[in-house]
């Protein structure tokens, strides 16, 4: 089989960057995107600078992918933002931005990817929800709502895209030591970890392992599933 073409959002840092390097090492042609340029580069990786909710920019990136690769095998919707705050102290602008990046951005990428994938009657989409959804985490109302939305979106798209040979699943990571949780007080993170069956922070490797599983050829009978790390 020729090199899989894999698109990952939010690759400038954190889990996204890790995944980009992980799949380049697995001989995928990796395309990534983020709002600002990366300070890293590696052969086999192509970067687009865009906001995941900018429909025109996103569509033009997909058009470029179609022209250069002719197909897309895998989409990993990693890009996401969070804001830790009591709902009474959360500005509406923050809520809108979180919903836009996490939910609307994921929708847009799923839609455009499925258009490309359905031509080949094959594709894998992996979305990012979070353990904060089943934990009903206080102080993250907008973030949790957006990620619950991603979970429901995954359920419905799994059904809509099944006849096109596309699977849609999600992963729900625990806190991982990235910028996303750096602003959260350590005590909060410790409390969160204490609610997991396996009480440690997650690692990027844990996320990559689940995604590897979803992307496998043999996983073509697995769709609409949500895998939470750490034993939630």
């Amino acid at each position, binding site marked *: 089989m020729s090199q899989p073409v894999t698109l990952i959002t939010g690759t400038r840092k954190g889990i996204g960057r890790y995944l980009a390097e992980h799949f380049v090492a697995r001989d995928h042609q990796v395309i990534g995107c983020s709002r600002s340029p990366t300070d890293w580069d590696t052969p086999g990786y192509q970067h687009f600078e865009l906001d995941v909710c900018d429909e025109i920019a996103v*569509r*033009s990136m997909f*058009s470029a992918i*179609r022209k250069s690769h002719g197909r897309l095998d895998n989409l990993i919707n990693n890009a996401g933002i969070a804001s830790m705050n009591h709902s009474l102290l959360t500005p509406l602008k923050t809520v809108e931005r979180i919903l836009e990046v996490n939910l609307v951005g994921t929708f847009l990428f799923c839609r455009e990817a499925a*258009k490309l994938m*359905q*031509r080949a009657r094959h594709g894998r989409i992996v979305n990012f929800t979070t353990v904060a959804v089943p934990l009903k985490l206080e102080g993250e109302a907008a973030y949790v709502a957006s990620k619950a939305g991603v979970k429901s979106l995954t359920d419905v798209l799994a059904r809509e895209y099944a*006849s*096109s040979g596309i699977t849609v699943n999600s992963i729900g990571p625990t806190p991982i030591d990235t910028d996303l949780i750096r602003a959260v007080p350590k005590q909060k993170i410790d409390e969160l970890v204490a609610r997991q069956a396996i009480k440690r922070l997650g690692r990027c490797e844990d996320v990559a392992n689940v995604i590897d599983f979803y992307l496998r050829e043999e996983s073509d009978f697995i769709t609409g599933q949500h895998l939470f790390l750490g034993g939630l």
Partner: protein
Amino acid sequence: MRDNIVALIVEAARELGDQDEIELPVELTADTRLFGEDGILDSMALVSLIVAVEQMIEEQLGFAVSLADDKALSQKSSPYQTIGTLADYAAAQQGASH
């Protein structure tokens, strides 16, 4: 421009018909009903056709259109009723973008 788009929709419908083994009329014209009563496509095939037409317009005619529409499945005002109405809809989008 409209004639070009009609021709392109016919081509896309033929390709889709071959790929998905859909029995299509021998003659496809601007008046051919795509969807709804006497339509040649079911809702999933219609979705595939719309996506294929979007891609072919961009590839062959050189402009990007978004044929997504909230009225898609409405019997009365859907832009997808016939090959002709779909062509008009795409052409109007091109006009609007200039």
